[in-house]
């Protein structure tokens, strides 16, 4: 199913939301990705990924208390859902499984 496929950026955002628990919201996610992966994203791009993940049911959200720095506006805090956790595990598993199947030979680099 097309909906269950997890894109690279989506996976990255999903992981970041997990890392930032329980304070994952748009700007925080954007900052974290920049810090950890060195990728500079526009806030609107982060937003659209977050909403997409929520629509896929991998994230859920709730509104936080109002904060001063946002002009008294609330944040939308994103949390992983069970489906989100499973999706991460599956992706991780698939990656490890595939990685492990790479012949040793292929990974041995020598100065020749």
């Amino acid at each position, binding site marked *: 199913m097309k909906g269950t496929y997890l894109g690279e950026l989506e996976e990255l955002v999903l992981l970041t939301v997990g890392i930032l628990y329980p304070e994952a919201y748009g*700007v925080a996610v954007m900052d974290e990705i920049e810090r950890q992966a060195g990728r500079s994203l*526009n*806030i609107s791009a982060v*937003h659209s990924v977050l909403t997409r993940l929520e629509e896929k049911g991998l994230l859920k959200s709730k509104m936080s208390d109002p904060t001063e720095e*946002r*002009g008294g*506006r*609330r944040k*939308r805090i994103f949390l992983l859902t069970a489906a989100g956790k499973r999706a991460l595990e599956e992706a991780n598993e698939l990656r490890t499984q595939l990685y492990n199947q790479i012949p040793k030979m292929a990974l041995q680099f020598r100065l020749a």
Partner: protein
Amino acid sequence: MKVMPPRWADRFLEWYCNPDLLEEIQGDAYELFYRTANENTQKAKLSFIWNVLRFFRWRNIRKDRIKNYTPLSTMMIKSYFVTGYRNMLRNATTSVINILGLSVAIGCAVMIFILEDSYYNLDAMHKNGDRIGLIVNHVKEGDQQSLLARSPVPLAELLKENSALEHVVRAARSSASVRVGNNVFTESILFADPAFLDMFSFNVVSGNRQSLYNKNQLMLTREMAVKHFGNEDVVGQTLSMKFNNQYIQELFIGGVLENTPANSSMYFNFLVPSAVWEDMNKGGTEDWSKNLSVTFVMMKEGNAFSQLQPTFDVYQKFQQQANTTNPVQRVEVVPMKDVAQRSYEFTGSLSWSNAPAAMIAFVVIGIFLILLACFNYMNVAVASVSTRLKEIGVRKVVGGGKKEIIHQFLVENLLFCFIALLAGTALAYYFLVPGFDSLYPVKMVFEVSSWKIVILFFGGLLLFVALVSGGYPALYVSSFNAMKILRGKEKFGNKSLFSRTLLTLQFTLSITCIVGCLVFVWSSYYFEGKDWGYNRDETVVVRLLDPTQFEEMRGHLSTNKNVISYAGAAQHIGKSSQSAVIRHEEQEYTVDHLPVGFHYLESMNIRITDGRSFDEAIESDKHESVIVNQSFVKKMGWSSPINQSFELDSTKRYVIGVVADFYYHDFYYEVKPAMFTITSKDDFKFLVVKVEAGSVLSTQEELKKAWKEVAPDDPYFGFLQSEVFDNFLNSNRANNKVIYFISAVAVMLAAMGLYGLVSYNLTRRLKEFSVRKVFGASVVQLFRLMNRDYMWILVIAFVIGAPLGAFLMDLMLKAAYPEQIPTTIWPYVIAITLMVLTVGMTIATQLKRLIEENPTETLRSE
């Protein structure tokens, strides 16, 4: 000061962003902004703008307009209709008032629409209409130019040489005495070239369409067939026609035409081949100097009227040689579709249509009435809201937004307007159009040119009325606060200033209208009772078609004991006059001239104020005596007019008497200097008979009998002198009826608007009045209280409206009549009485409600 993100970008975000997402998006944008704002404001602002622009994505844009209400409001439409219907039944009085007011206005609008539609589609039924044109001559007359629809007779022959033409048709209107057996009627006839029916698409019911090609055949309409023969099956029958110059001819009926349709600007009963005319006027066919016949051309397919110009150049040369005093300066071909509308510009046109000014006036009246009715509806609708406050409150609480309430009221209003439209159309069909048709000589039929325009008109009218009348109430009602309504705290009525302004406007318009109408009615009563300058009651007149008939009739008169005196006349007061140029002390004057026989003044009861009347015994009276009217004396500035002299046709004339001014035309014409002279019997066209009082009708019968013997081929053309201005007076009477109707509508509409406002204010102040009642206020006091506001409105409306109406009508009367009509106070008195009565009665009906109301009921329910 705290740094803020750019205002416009923020607003833009708020505007486009889905409200559900706005908070987080705006929050993130702000957070990013403040993070850098303290270090670099400019950069922060730019990045804020950039972010706002980047957030502008399909996902974030608000879509509620499309998404939310469409299914909901279509679902509700049925409910709106049901509620509207129930409300209509519940407030039956208000509903009836609304619908009645609107339907009267719509009825008038429909009638005016039909009038306009027929006006703009005159002659549209001719299949070749776009190729037909009327030749109009721009002729020099003195220092003026006039447009003559008639051309010289030989022009047609000349035009036939032009190869761009398919047909040329001449036509001339005339009249003839038509005799079938012993019955004689005078009919208006049309001499026409044979191709007339090839050019114009008039329907032939039976017989041969080509009949006019035979010079002893004619065609007549169905109506005429029935009139003269009693049935329509008349092809092949004969009738005899006696034309103007006494020429009599037997003619066969070659075909029967459908009655002239109402959308034809040309009207005729008989079509007679123009060959008959040529036989009658030998030599007249070659005369370039006189413009006698209307000439139509029909171009061959694909040819333009401008191709006729070379022929016109030749024609102008001929014409200018033959007629040096009135040369044709330009020839114009007027396309058939413009002929009717422009016919008022032309002299001698066969076509007829209403004056354009009248057509514009009608449109204005129509719009005026519709607007009045819409104002009314607004007033009444706003007033009736009081009974529906709870409903609106509940609707809002269960989720109806402002939009839904507006929709509901507009849909309801549409229902009302639709009913009014049906009622109004019925009113126009059964009452207004036939009424108009019977009042005026204009033929008016409930017909339209095409369905497309009908749908456009009715659809447009419905939408216009529904939106104009329903827009304000819907907006007003929808803006109420649900909480306040349900808590009973909505102070409804704060906006009554609007209603009051509307009402004042409405009253002003009504009073303008009423005063104007009354001034007009007054003027027509003034003319109705006006002295004509002579006693008209005991005089019978017979028109002579041949001067010899005078002598023969005379024999019959001398034996009649009721006859007091009689006289012949060449021109007759009230029917005709000629103008003459006289010379007095080296100066020329144009005066009206009435050549008459002896005893004419006595037979007409004209009052002699100075000198004597004509005397048969005095020989000089036949040649050089003249009697003038007082205007004549005034114009000459004579102090003693008797024996003054002037020259007429280079003969010296002496004044022997002066008569009081008399009206020899109707009142549209000024009384000008006029004179009587004696003329010979060979010129007599009228026989004037003065009879004993009370024997007018019996004498007229005897005259008719005598006429049958004297002139069996000619119809009897007699009339009573008292009838000569009937045309004028009848059209005045017809105008009066229309004006009464318009006034009645104006009063009615004003009363309805008032009713709405009074009941609205009464509802608002019911508690106040109840408290007053409890404390012992009398009915009179309450009445005065209620009236106070409206009296002011009435006073303002009267102060503005009355002079305006009088001024406008005065302007119109001045344009129509030369004479200053004495002003009276009556129109104002009647108008104000009428309005005060209307207001009083309207308020009284509401007062009844107040009196019957039990104060405890009102006050308990707090």
